[in-house]
């Protein structure tokens, strides 16, 4: 009952409607390819063995097109060892893929998801990013499973969607903060098109963050923009803060291509940092966000010439003409970053001798 309440709060349509829509999308997708769900299930299980078969990815979300593949995940009762290689099946012009996981490891993953969703944003994102080094199914496949639908129209793991949505939203926001920091560094360093490259990704990650907390969670980046257009068209924002943030995303989205040719007289840093802050607030991040450029653990400066040092860490090195400022900077202060410091920081993060780290500080503790 609790999970039904959480789902109802997350979704923008009644649960029954969402499941009906997904059921129809999947049936349409299968029949458009001249196939029938029952015989497809028998055919696939005959090839890969018994288990619970879930159709995943674009057909579930009503996004499939004529080149979309059939991506299946099969959940089996017994344990599996070793790497999970997808079985590729080419049959009568169709390209079908099935990858198998064990019920035990899936349950562990869903429990992990629930636990991650209770953590503060920094710890949550650490857990999200280290997921693939720790767990099978990997995080993308876990998302596919939660959203997956059986060929007879059941959604057995959808109760985990609220936890999935929160974790995916926080991870997307985190990526947007990193990218807006890079945007500010690039702008301060005098780049005109480079900052626009980061701006595209700020917008895409912000869209993903908002979409996730409207129940539309889907890992693949190529779909973010189309899903966003769908949400904007529906106007089904949860509240006014989301609506305002969504409208702000739209304003910057529409004007972005002009920034590519506008030259450096048009600044982006202030608008984009303000937008990230607005989405952070709308998605319920209550902490203050700070960013810093952190040198690698074994990074060192080595003298080269007066006014230039080699900043090296492991196998990578880059020449800098001033030292990287590693002090944390508040999100709102990023547009004011010093140009010399920005130039060095940008070189260091691009060369991989430094990373952009994001910290969340409780306001009450400040």
């Amino acid at each position, binding site marked *: 009952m609790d999970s039904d309440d959480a789902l109802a709060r997350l979704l923008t349509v009644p649960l029954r409607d969402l499941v009906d829509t997904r059921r129809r999308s999947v049936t349409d997708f299968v029949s458009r390819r001249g196939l029938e769900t029952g015989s497809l299930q028998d055919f696939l299980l005959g090839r890969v063995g018994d288990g619970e078969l879930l159709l995943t990815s674009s057909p579930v979300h009503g996004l499939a097109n*004529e080149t979309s593949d059939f991506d299946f995940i099969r959940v089996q009762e017994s344990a599996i060892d070793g790497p999970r290689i997808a079985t590729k099946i080419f049959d009568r012009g169709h390209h079908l893929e099935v990858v198998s996981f064990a019920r035990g490891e899936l349950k562990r993953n869903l429990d992990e998801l629930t636990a991650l969703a209770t953590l503060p944003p920094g710890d949550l994102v650490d857990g999200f990013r280290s997921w693939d080094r720790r767990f099978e199914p990997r995080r993308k496949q876990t998302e596919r499973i939660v959203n997956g639908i059986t060929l007879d129209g059941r959604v057995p793991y959808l109760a985990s969607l609220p936890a999935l949505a929160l974790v995916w939203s926080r991870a997307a926001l985190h990526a947007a903060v990193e990218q807006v920091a890079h945007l500010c560094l690039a702008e301060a360093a005098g780049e005109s098109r480079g900052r626009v490259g980061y701006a595209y990704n700020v917008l895409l990650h912000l869209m993903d963050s908002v979409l996730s907390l409207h129940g539309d969670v889907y890992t693949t980046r190529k779909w973010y923009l189309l899903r966003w257009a769908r949400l904007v068209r529906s106007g089904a924002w949860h509240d006014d803060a989301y609506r305002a943030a969504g409208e702000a995303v739209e304003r910057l989205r529409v004007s972005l291509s002009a920034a590519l040719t506008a030259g450096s007289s048009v600044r982006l840093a202030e608008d984009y940092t303000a937008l990230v802050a607005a989405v952070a607030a709308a998605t319920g991040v209550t902490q203050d966000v700070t960013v810093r450029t952190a040198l690698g653990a074994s990074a060192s400066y080595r003298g080269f010439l007066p006014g230039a040092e080699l900043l090296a860490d492991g196998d990578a090195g880059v020449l800098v003409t001033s030292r990287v400022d590693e002090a944390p900077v508040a999100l709102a202060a990023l547009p004011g970053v010093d140009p010399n410091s920005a130039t060095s920081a940008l070189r260091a993060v691009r060369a991989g001798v430094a990373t952009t780290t994001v910290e969340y500080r409780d306001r009450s503790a400040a």
Partner: protein
Amino acid sequence: MTGTTIASRVPVYPGVRAGHGTATPDAVRTWLQVAWLMLAECRAYVEDLEGGVAQPQMQQAAKLRMLEQVVDIDNRLAGRVPAADAHCLALGLEHGLSGLADATGEELADIFGLAEEFGGGSCRVDDIFTLWERLLAGFPGELPDRLVAQGQRDMLVTLRQWAELARSAGLDVGLLTQFMKDA
């Protein structure tokens, strides 16, 4: 040059044509990785662009991903430590390409049709296809197409060949594993 598009005239694989040499293990590592990224990643994006004629917003996001991938391949061919994905779009648009093709950031923005509204109702992809066909035609060797059944068999033959090549340079063909896991 009137009447030709930028995509049809930017030089491709300038380093190959010049005959620039690289230390053998670096050459083997680079070309195995580049070949894989071309045949797996770039080809998948091209398929997305072809399949998405009625989904311009998907095409727009997919072409940005493809541009990031192109820049990543360029970094490898130019012998750089590959920058993280997060920087590839910015690097390409600001600094252009020099390994995979000889193109400025402005030329890339033109080829990838970035002047149109991001997320608007149309998506220009013709010039991307032109560049892609030239990159395939100019690639040193024939890349298997793993998206079709015959290509799967070609891929197995190729992987056997690559394992031998890697061993000859004192490397393990496992250097491709990290990319295959993501495919």
